[in-house]
């Protein structure tokens, strides 16, 4: 119950209040609540054009009974020193509806006005509006807008204009009653956006950067300075400047440029074609071919050795002695025995004959004088026994132990050019066991007694780390080869021979203190030309390295077959140390204590080996 009462009370209160507000308000709203909004009479605006007069407009609103003329009245009041009170509008404009015009006498600046819209019949004020006259001043638009062309750019694309105008005639700027500011707008015709220029208080302004191919629209408006009310816009003025054809100046430049480029290209092509050869030389210099001074490479190609020899001999690079008839003979020859000297010729012949592949008879013929001829057949047999062996190893010379003269080791160091010597020594087994040393200083070799490795085939091992572990005996016959260790200038061959001798057989694991002694080089007078320049055979690569297999450790050391060359006495005889027996319990890898020697092609020593061997 209480709720109902309060609710009804609230309703009543609301009704009363709304009614009260309505009565206080401008209009009397009928009780029936119409859905459309009620618009009361109100002032729409008051404006002054020149700050001397002003007008006010109002609207009657949506009330029907008030739309009659005379139903509403405008009263104004100004806050002067002498407040008069509310006065009615001095002049209701006859021609314009709902307009009140205040003439000069009623217009006072620097005073605030208030106008009221009242109903004539009732004491209701519908609207009130207070202002000061200078705040409602909207000046008339400027007049006399025109433009003049200032200049056109060189390219003929842009131009500048000067816009002039005059102040509105209604505004009294001469006396200073109104000080105006102008604002110029311009745009491309029918564009949507206007460009504005800075406000100017003068009567002209320049517009820069217009384009000749477009039409522009310019208009202006003004306002009182220090106030914000702009007047209406003036009439638009259209600006268009025809583009000046300036292509004439551009055309010759372009033409000149094209001609210049074409001419340059033509010239360039001409140069290239005329100087083609020279240009090729400059740009792509020929690669210099390798040249040996003084030697025609053609000779080398064709293999004309005689000419080459003559050439070389004519040079002072090589010693004449080297290429005498018997250079090798001289190297080898030692002045040890006179007995061998008479055999020089024969030796020479032997040496020369050794160049031939079939050396069986020739090689030994020279040596026959120095050595036991009995060995000849043996040697031959030995040689024959070796399979595929045709030539003797140059370092291995057959000698009899009886011959004291260590005259010449049949170590024909063949000149390289003469023959591919390597072919002859492919399969030769030059490892031999030194059985004895002659007092003459010659080392007597005997075929090693390797029971376990009776392989007759040469081992084509090309392992460079492996030492030539032993010799490979293919035959059971005990052959004794005497290795004449001759003494070239540097004892070169001695080392090799000694090495090879030493490397044969099982007892490689002998005590490391077994040193290799090289025979002191006994420089022979004659063989001084050979400086150890050992020309590698051409067919070195083709050779199969003759590496005898390492004998197993279990092999019993041969008795008195292998000895170690300890030293050489004054008589240039190798002193072997028979006591230095190799123990059977040697490490199976006897190679290591030997200086590493690359797989030497049978019979040849390269200078690298020399370096390795030299102590």
């Amino acid at each position, binding site marked *: 119950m209480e709720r109902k009462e309060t609710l009804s009370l609230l309703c009543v209160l609301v009704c009363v209040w709304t009614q009260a507000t309505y009565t206080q308000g401008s209009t009397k709203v009928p009780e029936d609540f119409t859905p459309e909004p009620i618009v009361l009479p109100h002032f729409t605006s008051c404006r002054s054009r020149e*700050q001397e007069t002003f007008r006010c407009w109002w609207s009657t609103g949506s009330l029907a009974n008030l739309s009659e003329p005379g139903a509403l009245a405008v009263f104004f009041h100004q*806050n*002067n020193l002498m407040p008069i009170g509310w006065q009615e509008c001095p002049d209701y404009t006859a021609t314009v509806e709902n307009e009140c015009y205040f003439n000069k006498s009623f217009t006072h600046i620097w005073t605030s006005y208030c106008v009221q819209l009242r109903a004539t019949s009732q004491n209701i004020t519908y609207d009130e509006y207070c202002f000061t006259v200078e705040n409602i001043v909207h000046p008339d638009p400027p007049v006399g807008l025109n433009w003049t062309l200032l200049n056109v750019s060189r390219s003929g694309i842009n131009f500048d204009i000067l816009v002039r105008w005059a102040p509105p005639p209604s505004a009294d700027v001469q006396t200073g009653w109104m000080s105006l500011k102008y604002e110029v707008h311009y745009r491309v015709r029918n564009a949507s956006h206007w460009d504005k220029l800075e406000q100017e208080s003068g009567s002209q302004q320049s517009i820069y950067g217009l384009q000749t191919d477009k039409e522009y629209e310019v208009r202006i408006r003004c306002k009182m*300075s220090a106030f914000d009310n702009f007047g209406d816009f003036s009439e638009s003025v259209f600006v268009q400047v025809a583009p000046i054809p300036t292509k004439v100046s551009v055309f010759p430049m372009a033409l000149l440029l094209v001609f210049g480029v074409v001419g340059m290209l033509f010239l360039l092509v001409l140069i290239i074609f005329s100087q083609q050869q020279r240009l090729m030389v400059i740009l792509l210099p020929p690669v210099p071919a390798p040249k040996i001074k003084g030697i025609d490479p053609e000779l080398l190609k064709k293999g004309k050795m005689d000419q080459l020899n003559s050439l070389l001999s004519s040079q002072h690079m090589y010693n004449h002695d080297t290429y005498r008839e018997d250079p090798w003979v001289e190297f080898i020859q030692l002045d040890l025995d006179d007995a061998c000297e008479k055999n020089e010729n024969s030796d020479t012949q032997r040496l020369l004959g050794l160049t031939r592949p079939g050396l069986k008879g020739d090689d030994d013929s020279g040596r026959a004088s120095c050595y036991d001829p009995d060995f000849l057949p043996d040697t031959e047999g030995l040689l024959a026994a070796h399979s595929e062996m045709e030539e003797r190893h140059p370092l291995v010379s057959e000698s009899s132990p009886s011959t004291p003269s260590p005259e010449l080791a049949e170590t024909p160091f063949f000149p390289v050019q003469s023959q591919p010597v390597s072919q002859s020594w492919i399969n030769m087994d030059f490892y031999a066991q030194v059985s004895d040393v002659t007092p003459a200083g010659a080392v007597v070799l005997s075929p090693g007694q390797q029971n376990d490795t009776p392989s007759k085939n040469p081992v084509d091992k090309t392992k460079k780390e492996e030492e030539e572990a032993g010799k490979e005996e293919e035959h059971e016959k005990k052959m004794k080869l005497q290795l004449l260790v001759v003494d070239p200038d540097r004892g070169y061959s001695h080392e090799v021979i000694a090495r090879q001798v030493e490397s044969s057989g099982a007892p490689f694991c002998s005590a490391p203190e077994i040193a290799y002694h090289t025979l002191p080089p006994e420089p022979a007078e004659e063989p001084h030309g050979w400086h150890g320049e050992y020309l590698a055979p051409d067919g070195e690569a083709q050779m199969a390295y003759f590496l005898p297999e390492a004998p197993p450790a279990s092999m019993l050391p041969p008795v008195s077959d292998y000895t170690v060359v300890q030293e050489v006495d004054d008589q240039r005889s190798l002193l072997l140390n028979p006591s230095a027996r190799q123990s059977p319990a040697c490490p199976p890898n006897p190679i290591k204590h030997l200086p590493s020697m690359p797989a030497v092609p049978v019979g040849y020593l390269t200078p690298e080996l020399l370096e390795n061997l030299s102590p």
Partner: protein
Amino acid sequence: MKNTKVLQGCLGLLFCSIHGLLGSALDCPDRDAGGTRCSISVEKLLDRAIQHAELIYRVSEEARTLFEQMFIPFSFHAQQSHGGHLCTSNIFPIPTSKSEVQQISDKWLLHSVLILIQFWIDPLVELQASLDRYDNAPSDLLNKTKWMSTKLMNLEQGVLVLIRKMLEEGSLELHNNESVTPYLLPTDMVEHVLRDYAMLSCFKKDAHKMETFLKFLKCRQTNRPSCSIL
């Protein structure tokens, strides 16, 4: 704002020019006999005074706008524009329409200008002090206020010289012992902000008056028919 820069440039130029002008103008009357430098014409003097007044008027407008944007809520701003300010100096009747101005004599115009100037010198100083007390008053506003008070004093000097020259009178002093501030503002405006805003608006109005009167004076010098009805 370019307006500001232009204004400042003009201010600088004008200040220097009017300072020199006023200095020389002040010295001139004592040495009319011999000094050749004192032959500054009334027109030039009046021109400079007008420029000065214009500048003061523009700066006052800018200061008022600045203050309004910073401190005045929009609702009150609307009310102000409608209701106007009760800050018209009611010391003496001032012509409020063009016709009235046209009817007023030169003497009266000059005197009015002088009175207005002298009226506002002290309130401006007070306004400046009041603005300095604000927490977030923009420096631009403070500078403008300071500038206005300075220039106003310069303008006073110039107008005094003009009076001396044009009217050939002695110096004129306002005998106004009343305190202006209470008169200036309605008593119910107790808030500092509203008071300062009202003061700025009123000053702008009075600066406009000064400019208008001086321009009228100038117009009359040219003897154009539209300047004076008489």
